[in-house]
C-alpha cells in the first residue's frame, strides 16, 4: 500500500515537470577584419581555356552569398616546363586563358596573381594525374516520409550511384562531381500586376509579348521571340564526393553514392540530366575537398566535430593579406545520363504554370548546355 502511495506521489510530481530542450543561437563577439581574398580555378587535361575566379569573402554579418568580385588583377599560368600564359578578365572577377597552355598528365601547374595595388599571391604547383572513368551510373527510386512539426510529408527521390574504373595510377584520390540539370518552361507573357481590387496583364518584355494599347489593355500581341521562357536549372552537389579507400576493389570503385535527384513536377517536367565528372586530385587538392566535405557533412550533426580552417594552396608573397582558395590540376572524364519520367514508378503531375521569367528560378540559365540533347 505504501509503495503504491509513493508511486502515486511521484506520478503527480512528474506531471509538474516541464523538461524543455532547446536550440539557441550563440552570438560571438567577432572583431571586424578585412575580407579574405578567395581564389578558385583549375586546369584540366581538356584543352583550355581555363578559368580563375577571384572574389572577396563574405563578412560575418552578411547573410547573402553574393560574390564580391575582385577586378583588374594580373594573373599568369605557369607549367613545370617554363611556359607561361596570361589570363584576361572576361567578366568582373572572372579570368580566362587563351589556350596557349594545355593541361597534360604528369605535369604540374601553378598561378601567380597580382592585385591592382601590387600584392602578389601564388599557388603551390599542383600535378595533373590521370584518371579512370565512370563505367556505370545507377539510380534507385526511394520513398520516405518526413515527420515535420506541421505533419508528415512524402519525399520521393532517386539515389544515384556509380561504378568506376580507378585508373592505372596508384594515386586513388578521385572526386566525382555531380551536377543535375533539368529544363523548365515558364510563361512570362502571363505575368500580371495586382492592385487592390483588380489585376492588370503586364507581360514581361523578355517574353516577346506586349499588351495591345487599344481595347482597354486586355489583349496581348507577340512582337518577338521569348528570351526568358526556357531555362536549364542546375542542381549542384552540396558536398564533394571523394574516393574512400575501402571501396576500391581491383582498381575499381563500386556502388559509390554520388548524389540524389529529387522527384517533383519541376525536375521531371521534361527529363533530368545527370552529369558525373570523375576528376583526379593531387594530395593537397584532396585535402582541401576533404576538409570541405567534413565541414558540410558535420553541419547536420549534433555531435559535430570541431571544424577546420580551410585555406587551400594559395599563399601571399609580399604581404600578410589573408587568402583562401585552390588552383588545382585535374584530368576529367565526364559521363552523362538522362533520367526520364518513365523511370518513376508513378505518374508525376504536370507543373503549375509560372508567370515569371525562368531566370527567377535558383541556379537557372537560359543558355542551353552544350551537352544537352
Amino acid at each position, binding site marked *: 500500500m505504501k509503495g503504491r502511495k509513493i508511486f502515486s506521489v511521484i506520478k503527480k510530481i512528474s506531471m509538474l515537470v516541464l523538461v524543455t530542450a532547446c536550440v539557441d*543561437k*550563440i552570438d560571438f563577439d567577432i572583431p571586424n*577584419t578585412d575580407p579574405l581574398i*578567395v581564389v578558385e580555378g583549375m586546369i584540366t587535361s581538356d584543352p583550355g581555356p581555363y578559368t580563375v575566379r577571384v*572574389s572577396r569573402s*563574405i563578412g*560575418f554579418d552578411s547573410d547573402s552569398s553574393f560574390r564580391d568580385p575582385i577586378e583588374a588583377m594580373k594573373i599568369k599560368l605557369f607549367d613545370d616546363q617554363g611556359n607561361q600564359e596570361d589570363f584576361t578578365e572576361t567578366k568582373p572577377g572572372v579570368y580566362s586563358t587563351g589556350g596557349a597552355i594545355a593541361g597534360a598528365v604528369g605535369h604540374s601547374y601553378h598561378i601567380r596573381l597580382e592585385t591592382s595595388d601590387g600584392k602578389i599571391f601564388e599557388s603551390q604547383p599542383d600535378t595533373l594525374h590521370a584518371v579512370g572513368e565512370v563505367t556505370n551510373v545507377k539510380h534507385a527510386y526511394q520513398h520516405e516520409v518526413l515527420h515535420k512539426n506541421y505533419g508528415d510529408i512524402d519525399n520521393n527521390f532517386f539515389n544515384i550511384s556509380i561504378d568506376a574504373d580507378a585508373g592505372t595510377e596508384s594515386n586513388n584520390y578521385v572526386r566525382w562531381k555531380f551536377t543535375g540539370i533539368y529544363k523548365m518552361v515558364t510563361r512570362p507573357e502571363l505575368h500580371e500586376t495586382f492592385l487592390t481590387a483588380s489585376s492588370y496583364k503586364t507581360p514581361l518584355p523578355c517574353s516577346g509579348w506586349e499588351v495591345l494599347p487599344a481595347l482597354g489593355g486586355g489583349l496581348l500581341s507577340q512582337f518577338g521571340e521569348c528570351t526568358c521562357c526556357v531555362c536549364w536549372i542546375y542542381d549542384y552537389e552540396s558536398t564533394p564526393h571523394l574516393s574512400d579507400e575501402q571501396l576500391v576493389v581491383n582498381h575499381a570503385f563500386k556502388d559509390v553514392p554520388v548524389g540524389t535527384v529529387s522527384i517533383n513536377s519541376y525536375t521531371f517536367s521534361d527529363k533530368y540530366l545527370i552529369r558525373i565528372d570523375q576528376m583526379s586530385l593531387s594530395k593537397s587538392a584532396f*585535402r582541401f575537398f576533404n576538409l570541405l566535405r567534413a565541414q558540410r557533412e558535420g553541419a547536420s550533426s549534433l555531435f559535430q566535430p*570541431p571544424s*577546420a580552417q580551410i585555406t587551400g594552396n594559395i599563399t601571399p608573397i609580399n604581404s600578410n593579406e589573408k587568402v583562401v582558395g585552390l588552383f588545382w590540376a585535374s584530368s576529367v572524364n565526364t559521363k552523362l545520363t538522362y533520367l526520364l519520367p518513365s523511370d518513376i514508378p508513378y505518374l508525376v503531375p504536370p507543373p503549375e504554370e509560372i508567370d515569371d521569367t525562368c531566370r527567377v528560378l535558383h541556379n537557372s540559365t537560359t543558355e542551353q548546355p552544350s551537352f544537352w540533347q
Partner: protein
Amino acid sequence: MLLRKIFWLVLLCFASIARAQTILDAPLDSITESKPFTTLLDEIALKSGARFFFRKEWIQDLNYEPGQVKTLGEALNLFFRGTDLRHFMMDPFAVVIVKDPTGEILHEKAIQEAVRQQKKIVSYQIGQPRDFKRGQQVKVNGRVTDVKTKSPMVGTYISVSNDQFTTTNNDGRFSLTLTPGVYALSFSFINYEDKIIDLSVYANGDINLEMEEVPILLDELVVRDRAELTTQGIGFTQLTMQDVKHAPATFGQPDIIKRVQMLPGVTTVGEAALGFNVRGGSVDQNLILHDGMPIFNSAHAFGFLSSFNPESVRDVSFYRGGIPAMYGGRASSVLDISTKDGSYEKWSGNAGIGMITSNLLLDGPIQKDKTSMMVSVRSTYSNWLVHSVKTDYADLSKSNVSFYDAMLKLTHKFSDRTKVAFTGYSSQDSFRLTGDTTYQWSNAQASVTVDHQFNSSLAGQFVGGVSSYGYQIKDSDSLTQSQLSYRITSSVLKAGFHYLKDRHKINFGWQLMHYQFDPGTFKPTSPISNAKYVSMDKQYSIENAFYVSDAYSFNEKFLIEGGLRIPTFISFGPASVYKYKAGLPLDVLNIQDTVRYKTGQPIKTYFGIEPRLSFRWMIDPNSSIKIGYNRIYQFLHLISNTTAVTPTDIWQPSGYYFKPQHADQISIGYFRDFREKKYGISAEPFYKSIKNILDFKDAAQLILNRHLETDLLQGKGWSYGIETSISKNTGRITGSLNYTFSRSFRQVAGPTASESINNGNPYPASFDQPHIMNLTWRYKITRRYYFTGNFTYHTGRPVTIPVSAFAFENTTIAYFSGRNQYRIPDYHRLDIAVVFEGNHRRKKRGEGIWILSIYNVYGRKNPYSIFFKGTGSGVPQAYQLSILGSALPSISYNFRF
C-alpha cells in the same frame, strides 16, 4: 598544569648550559661493577662535588652495567632514550633530571574532552608497568572493522591524545609506535560513532576495534574533511556516500561523478558531459577503478548520471595530485571506488524510487559470520522523460533513452585473516538522440579479490578479473541500415602488499593487464543496405607494473612518502603495421610497405620509470604545508574529435606509431584550520606538463580507419593553476566554497604544415576553463530536515567557430577561426534540495529519506552540444543544444529496511 609550568620554567632558566668539561664528561671507565644508577650518581656527587636533582622513584629501577658507556652524559642519554625523562645542566656541576609531563597532560585533556562530549570511553591496558623496559618503545597494531559488515574501515582517522595522527590503510589496519605510558586514542569515521580508548601501554600489543554506523546524519559528516584537511595526502579527497546521497540530485538520483565534479580543480565541458577534466587533463586521463577493475565509460543517460549505484558503494577515493605509486596508467587523476560487503549478521535492504529510476539493494549473510551477499539493481522505468521533452528541434522528439546497472558481491571469510570476495557488475545503456541512430554501450566486470593478513605487519590483496566495455551504433535508415561495434576487453591480475613497521607504511606490488581491442566491425543489417562490411584487425597489448612506496613519518611533524612505479607496455601481434617512406609525413600515399607481426610477436615495447613523492610538514597542529610530485605514463589514449566523451570514441593503445603520454605534475599546498577546526582554508598551486598528447588532424576520419596514424598528431600539453577553498565544518550551516584558476594548453608543431595544428602555435585545450567556482552547503533546519545545495560556475570552453565565409563552386564555405580561439558562453547552475529524514530512533523497522531537489533552479540554458548551421547563404551560425533549458524538479524516496 602545575607540573608542566614548573617544567618549562626550569627549562627556560637553565637552557643555556653547554660548556666543555662538565660533570657529564665524567668518565665511568673506572667503575667495574654493576650498581643501581642512583648509587652511581651519589658516588659521583661525593667524588666530584657535583649536584644531581631528581625524584628517586623516577630512576630507582635503573641499573648501571659496566662497559655500556664511557661517560656520565652517555649514560643519561642511554637511560632516558624513549622515556619521558630529560636532563639538563644548571651549571657545569649541577644536573637536573625532570619528567616531561606533556604526554600525561595531553592524555588527560583528551579524556576530559571526550567526557564532556559524552563519548563512550573504553579503558584498555596492554602489558603491565613492570613489563616496561627503559629506552624501548612499544608497538600497537590494530584493525578497525564495521561492526555489522565486518568489512575493513579504510581511512579511519586515529588521533593519539590529539598529538599524533594516523589513518587506517586499505585493509583497515594501523600501526602506532609509542613511548610506554598513557594515551587517549580516538577513532573517527564519517557517520560512525567515535570510539575513545583510554590506553595504558607498556608492551607490544594489538587493538582490534569495531565501529558502528550512526543511523542519522550528524555533524560528523564533515569530521573527516575537517580532521584531514591538514593531515591527509596532497590532492586527495575521500568522498563520503552520505555526502553524495544528500546532495541535490539530477532526476532524484544521487551521483558520485556529479559530486567529483564539485571538487576543486575538477570541471566538465558542458551539461551532461560524460566524464570530467582534472587540472587541465583530458577525460581519458582519469583512472576509474571499480573494485580494482578499470571502467572505460562511466556514464548513463547521455551523461546525466554515472553508472555506479551509490547504494552499493562503500567508499570513493579521489586523487588529483601526489598520486600514490600503486596507481598508474592514467595521467591526471584516480577515482577508486570500492563496493560494500554484504552484512554477515542479518539481512537488510535499501530501496530507492526516483523520477526516472528506481533501485533495490539487498544484503545479508548466506552463512552467518562467514559468507555474505550483496545484490543491487537499478533501472529506468520508461522513456517518459525523454518523450516529455518539449522541443522545436524535430529530431529530438524521436529520442529515447534507457539503461540499467546491476551488481552482485559475494564475500566469504575463510578465517580472521583471509577473505575472498567476488564482484560481478554489469551496466547497459541505449539512447537515440537524433534521427535513426541508436547508441548503445555496456560495461561488464567479474573479479575476485583475496585479502590475506600474513602477520600483524604484513597484509596482501590479490585481485584477478576481467572487464569488458563495448558500444554499438545502430543505423536504422533502410538504405544504410548497419551496425558498428567496438569492444575493449581487459584482464587484470594484481598483487598488492601493505607492510607496517615502526614509522614506515610500505606498499609494494605488481599489476598486470592484458588488453584486447576490437577497434570496429561495421556490417550491414539488412539485405538492401548499402553498408559495406568492414572489420578492423584486433589489437593486443600488455601493461605490466611493479611499484613500491614508503610513507615514513620522521616525527609528528614530518611525513614523507616516496614511491617508484615501473610500468612496461608491450603491443604485440597478430597485426599489420604500415611503414611509411622515411622523412615524409605519415600519409596513405607514402605507405611503402606493410609489416606483418605474428601472434604474440612484440611490435613495440615501452618502459617507464615513475617517481612519486609527497611530503607533509605540520607547521603546528592546525596548519600544514604539503608537496606532491608524480610522473605517470599513460599507454591508452582516447581518440576523439568531439570535446566530451561520446559513445563513438575510440581507445587506442600505444604501439608502433603512438608513444605513451607522460605527465609530470608538481603541486604545493598550504592548509589551515581555524577555531578548533570550525573553518578550514587551503591553497594549492600546481603545474603539469604532458608529453605525447594526441590530437586529431583537421577533418580526421577516426572510425574504421586502418591507418589512424595518418590522421593523428602527437604534441605536448601543459596546464597550471591554483586551487583555493574555504570550508565551514561545524554548526547548523556547513559548506565549502572553492575557486580554481587554471589554464591548459596544447601545442602540436610538426615538421610540415599538415603535421601541425594551428600553424604549430600553442592553442587552448578544448577543456581549458580558466575560472571554476563551486559552492556547496548544508543547512540543518531541524534535526531531521536539511536544506542543501550547490552552485557551480565555470568559464565556457573554447571552440572553433566560423568567422567569415566564401563562395566556392556554387556553395558557401565557412572560414573557421584557428583551433579553439573562441569560447562558448559560461556555464553556471544552481541546484537545491530539501532532505527529510525518517525518525532517529535506534530501534525501528526501517528508515526513510525523502529528497526533493531542483536541478538548474533558474533554468540556465547550458549547452549540451554546439553546432553550426548554414542558412544556405552567408556565414553558418553557431547554435547550442541545451537538453535542460528549464528548472528540473525531482523527488526521490529511499527506504532502508
